[in-house]
């Protein structure tokens, strides 16, 4: 069993917590004793932060819509279809015809790349996320 110190995935308090890992599965979470915010305390969501990680409904492979239905596809195929479609729409309708939504559930590094992707690759400032929700 390994314990990995990380940050809770739920609200904006930013509690430090440990994820308990056994056989490459996250089996539990518990508070960090010395973390300045959590101070050995978590709310019910924090205690259950690991609860959805191995849910049977987790998406495990890329999906592509064929004949109106989402079907499994390779990464290469899914990425190429997306790159081609975005490229075509930018070419035909201009950069501002594409919008990107980043996420308050992604890391800073990912959000940085997403806005860079919108601005530097697609050429639009149509980038936002759920800050107002």
């Amino acid at each position, binding site marked *: 069993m390994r314990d990995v110190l990380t940050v809770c995935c739920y609200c904006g308090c930013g509690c430090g917590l440990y994820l308990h890992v056994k056989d490459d599965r996250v089996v539990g979470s518990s508070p960090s004793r010395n973390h300045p915010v959590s101070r050995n305390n978590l709310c019910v969501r924090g205690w259950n932060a690991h609860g959805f990680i191995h849910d049977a*409904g987790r*998406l495990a*492979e890329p999906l592509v819509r064929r004949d109106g239905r989402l079907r499994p596809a390779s990464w290469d195929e899914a*990425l190429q279809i997306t790159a081609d479609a975005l490229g075509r729409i930018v070419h035909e309708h201009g950069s501002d015809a594409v919008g990107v939504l980043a*996420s308050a559930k*992604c890391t800073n*590094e990912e959000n940085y790349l997403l806005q860079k992707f919108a601005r*530097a690759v697609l050429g639009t400032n149509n980038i*936002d996320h759920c800050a107002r929700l």
Partner: protein
Amino acid sequence: MTNSINEIEQAQVILVSGSNTTRTHPQVARRFFTAMDRGAKLIVIDPRRTRLARHAHIHLRIRPGTDIALLNGMMRSIIDENLIDDLFIQMRTENYTTMRDMLFGIDLAQAAAITGVPEKMIRRAARIYAQAQRSVICYCLGVTQHIAGTGNVQSYANLAMLTGHVEQEFTGVDPLRGQNNVQGACDMGALPGVLPGYQSVADPGVREKFARVWGVELPVTAGMTLLDMTHVPDSAASLQTATPAIRAMYITGENPLLSEPALNSVRRTFHQFDFLAVSDIFLSETAQVADVVFPAASFAEKSGTITSSERRVQLMRKAIDPVGDSRPDDWIVRELARRMGYAMDYDSPAEIMEEICLVTPIYAGMYHDRLDREWGVQWPCGGRDQEGTQYLHKYSFTRGRGRFEPARHVEPAEPVDSDYPFALITGRLYFQYHTGTMSRRTPILERESDQPLLEVHPEDGRRLGLRQGCRVTVVSRRGRCRFVVELTDRVAPGNLFTSFHFAEAPVNELTVEASDPVARCPEYKVCAVRLEEVETC
């Protein structure tokens, strides 16, 4: 937040508005109670009698959407009793005379009539807040999710500046951020008008700086907000010739088809897209209508930093390999960029952060190796060797002087009337989270709270023949939705409350898409509804 979470323990007066803190930010609520154990006074402004409101010394139970009227009343009373901080106003603020003149036109009796709070209570709350040495304001979405959201926030800032409760430790104005990295997503420039570190896209100097690092010219015009991208106006949709501005979207980790207001309008907009790519950990309502779905890694399967409400940038560490064939979103974005002819070569999230440090002054010292050794660092942090910042606006505001922005009361977009006599308030529960993508798949959380409950005041319940646990349909001008009745005096008579966690009762079928004209924040907190089809039980 201008303060740190731990500072709240030292406050003498805590004014909480539009926040169900014990439910949504339990760690912050914990600090409230610690402060109260030490003698602090708690003032709660909320149309609902939340658990926190029950513990408050004063609960100002306003009619939904009347914050400005209440605050103007409080400020008038502070001026009347000469409890303003003259020195602070003189040294640190501007536009005070306009503010004062506006307040002289405020009648407390009228404020009491608009808000439904007795004049005496308004005066008492104002006195308690103004007289203490260390008063802090905490607010949440109950303040911002109104068509007058900007005016609401400005009014809280006015109140803090009027009494000088800003510049010191343990005083300030603290918006509580809802998601673990909503602060960071804003900081990183995932907003239509600003680049990382809130540097404006309208500033040519800023654009040039980024152009040098990124090697491309940057777009000049500000982009569209989430609300504008996902809601094509009615008139445009009805005209066959009109095409939506947005033809394609790439969405990561968001679920607008459940979380956005007026879902009818969102569905219509999505229907018109030529292409939709969604990256998520589950097949959300939005992913179900996508053309391409990318399986993303969850927080336990990747590393990187996230920024909490108190501006604390912390390292999130990878615990396990991605589940199935899922991948972290940074890998997906880099692959897409490469295929579209733009190289994003980074070996690790740490290397991405080095570029962020380079172009983002407030993040200039947030290197991973450093964050790894500490409990994170609070921005602004100007360099690797510099400390973070515990609280903001110590000697000056970001813009120099703090500007008083007088605001006037605005009625909610959809007032109640005889056809739709109830005001519906939406919000969050303790055991669930947002659209439930994560919490509803967590067995213990789902066990505790698995029904879309509608809070109805017992008096209203009696009048309409509603009983605990029976089902009822809530109808607004835009849609209908079925809930389970919970009779409780948490809501005032004439108000209803429910959450947006449950896909089987998507409350955003009912909500209005009217929004604040500046912030474009939708008015989730009030819409007019009626109750129908009561199922006897």
